[in-house]
């Protein structure tokens, strides 16, 4: 790998980072972050560009991908509360989730996460960075319910 360094132990680094991430995770399992993927709807009739059928009686097969839990990650919370905003402007609470490369591959493509009972929608992934041959990914998520 291009950035490999013989004196840098990538596995030990990952182990150490994951230890810190797990240390900072909520102790209640139900409050820990869970990554979800949108269900795939398969219709038995023709659909339009938004995958909506023309026949209102079309039958649908719903394929719900399994949610991903127990992913070590760092979470930063940005609260939009107590900020004056112009009426009609949406300023939602956000979280930034930092993942190691191997853990990012487990949750890549997730559509939303649930953390502490709150649902956050995926927005963007920053340009990747890293330390020698360990990649780091910072993903941005926006609270669905905040206005």
């Amino acid at each position, binding site marked *: 790998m291009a950035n490999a360094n013989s004196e840098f132990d990538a596995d030990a680094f990952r182990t150490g980072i994951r230890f810190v991430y797990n240390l900072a995770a909520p102790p209640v399992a139900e409050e820990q972050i869970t990554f979800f993927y949108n269900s795939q709807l398969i219709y038995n*009739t*023709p659909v*339009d*560009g*938004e995958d909506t*059928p*023309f*026949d*209102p009686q079309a039958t649908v097969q719903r394929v719900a991908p399994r949610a991903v839990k127990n992913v070590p990650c760092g979470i930063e919370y940005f609260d939009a509360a107590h900020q004056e905003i112009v009426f009609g402007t949406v300023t939602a609470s956000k979280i930034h989730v930092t993942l190691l490369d191997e853990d990012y591959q487990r949750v890549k493509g997730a559509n939303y996460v649930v953390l502490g009972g709150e649902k956050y929608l995926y927005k963007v992934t920053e340009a990747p960075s890293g330390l020698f041959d360990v990649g780091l990914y910072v993903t941005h998520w926006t609270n669905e319910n905040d206005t």
Partner: protein
Amino acid sequence: MTFPGTPSNLRFRYRHVHATMFDYVKTSLVGLGWGDAGLPASDPANAAVNFATTPATYLEFQPDESGVKIAVNTVAITLGDEPASEDEEMGPGLQLVRFPVFVDIYGANQAISHSIASDVKHMLENHYQQVMDHTVSPPAPVDEQLELDKDDVMVMKPQAALSAQDFRRYWRVVKTLARVHYIGDAHV
């Protein structure tokens, strides 16, 4: 053009007209050499794209309204608000509804945008076909006549394009009316 003679009982007419217009514009543009980004690069449709530009991306919705990134050479075919139906003088129960049609073109540069818009304008002038029922595959014609008159077609540059960045400032819109003639549904 032949006016309809029987009730088609077409439910969700707006969507079927939209899909009919989308299929017509997309098929025509692919046939005119603008390619299809939804097909592999090795597909014959993308073998010799006009001006060696990027194959076109065809959408049924406005990309910015659906949170979809706008790709170079995007062609979005949409309908505007559906107006009230009008009674026509010819034939019993014959009605007319005029759907606004918008073809938004985000070309790679000025020349490409104008070239695509020119092809779209030409194909929307004096075109007549039946509305297609998209509940079946392949879509089947129904007894409703879709009319595109040359007097309704125009090419515009949206105001928002003036302040847009990168290739989005080459945004052009082809506007027309899709006149749909149909036999009104019987109401008891």
